[in-house]
């Protein structure tokens, strides 16, 4: 497949994104991104985009389908709201990578900053390094795999997403607990590590998930509550 070069030193960001969004398929190489925002955002066809260098905010944001690979770092909101397809960066991402993602795979070879996978709704995220505080905050579905360490309040207010961590966890957030690693979890983790191209042994990981205490109705002292009701107090 021949590759079309799109040089951000020569064309505007709008021209770049219009070219990508108007292509039914094909391979593209983006040069000189120089930290620009919203590079390759809103892709909705099965294109393959290779970005040579670091990008700014919301790279591959609202990603519906296709593949984006960044040779470098990414700032806030990498692949936010990804629906399917794959976004892979060789460097590190700052805050809120993969936020609210519904599906697809996000691979970060380096570290990810705070709130990685916040409100994830089905996306799979694999981080080669560490994740920042409040990662997977309010996660609803999907898997967050961390080969390094997790900072404070991991999985705070988690619904049903799975979190796998190989390194240390500084602290767990409210309602997030360590859980048993069953056969189906090992299978999922093995598949995700392979898809992400990460060399790690699933046996070295710990699984975390929701205790399901926070989002169910729960009265601390039911006797006192009933007594109060019967006396009309």
């Amino acid at each position: 497949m021949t590759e079309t070069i799109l040089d951000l030193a020569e064309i505007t960001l709008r021209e770049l994104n219009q070219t990508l969004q108007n292509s039914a398929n094909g391979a593209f190489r983006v040069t000189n991104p120089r930290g620009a925002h919203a590079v390759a955002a809103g892709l909705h066809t099965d294109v393959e985009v290779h970005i040579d260098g670091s990008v700014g905010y919301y790279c591959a944001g609202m990603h519906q389908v296709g593949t984006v690979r960044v040779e470098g770092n990414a700032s806030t909101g990498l692949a936010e709201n990804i629906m399917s397809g794959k976004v892979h960066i060789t460097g590190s991402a700052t805050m809120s990578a993969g936020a609210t993602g519904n599906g697809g795979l996000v691979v970060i070879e380096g570290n990810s900053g705070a709130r990685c996978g916040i409100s994830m709704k089905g996306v799979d995220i694999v981080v080669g390094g560490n994740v920042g505080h409040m990662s997977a905050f309010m996660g609803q579905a999907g898997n967050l795999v961390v080969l390094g360490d997790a900072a404070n309040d991991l999985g705070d207010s988690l619904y049903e997403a799975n979190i796998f961590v190989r390194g240390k966890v500084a602290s767990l957030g409210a309602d997030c607990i360590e859980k048993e690693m069953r056969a189906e979890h090992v299978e999922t983790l093995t598949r995700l590590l392979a898809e992400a191209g990460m060399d790690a042994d699933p046996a070295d990981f710990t699984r975390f998930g929701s205790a399901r205490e926070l989002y169910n109705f729960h009265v601390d002292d039911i006797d006192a509550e009933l007594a109060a009701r019967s006396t009309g107090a």
Partner: protein
Amino acid sequence: MCGIVGLFLKTEKYRHELGLHTAAMLHEMRGRGLDSAGFAVYDPAREGHTRLTLLSEGREFDWSPTAAALETALNAEVTVRQILDHAVFETTGDGRAARQWIIDNVPEVDVLSHGRQIELYKSVGDPDLVASRYDLASRTGTHAIAHTRMATESAVTTNGSHPFVTGADTCLVHNGSLSNHNQLRKKLVQQGESFQTENDSEVAAGYLSWRLREGDTIDEALHGALRDLDGFYTFAIGVENGFAILRDPIACKPAVVAETDDWVAMSSEYRAIAMLPDVAHASVFEPDPGRIYSWSLAA
């Protein structure tokens, strides 16, 4: 939203181009705030001299009578360099005494900075215009911090523009908003600090000023800030011979740092760093929340 940049030159290599690179960084942060801008550059004064940057906002001002009177008061030589509504006084006399004398005797003038290295310029308007008006690009020196402001907590005025001075050769730029600034301002006034605006960032500067005056090191003062300031912030702080960064523990406000053998650069966004020389070989990272980073020249 505001944009902040800082550039600290560890070696001689780019010191003749400090302003050029700082202006390019500031330009990239225009999109984060077009209300006002300001910059502080650190370039040592002649041996035994102190500098004061003075502002006579929006007025023609004849600085020579002030300089002459100050010479008499200090019993020391005072030279004047005027740049539009700013002036830089350089003196062999006591810098603190000079600052206090101007505050007491020339109330229509603001003392923007004082110290052995710092010069500070600020104005309302497009950051590119502010940079060119005060000729940032031609500045030499060891380090600089700069700011583009999108005002949220107080009016768009020159006095509400950053950087804010926190003492001799010390200043601060801020991206964020503090929620306990009114309460803290009252406490600081009781401690003897004075404030010129309703601005929240000025309170952060006043806080550091108070801590430094009480004998804290910059690291100790920033540890105190982590405890006593409530709100969102990324700070870049310029000090004599050095440069520091602090983000609040929640870290909603962005920051990125790049470091090579020759320089350390920080900014709200990577694009302000992307065109610095040799950036391809820089180590690039996001500063951790609630952690103090500082760099200084070997004394």
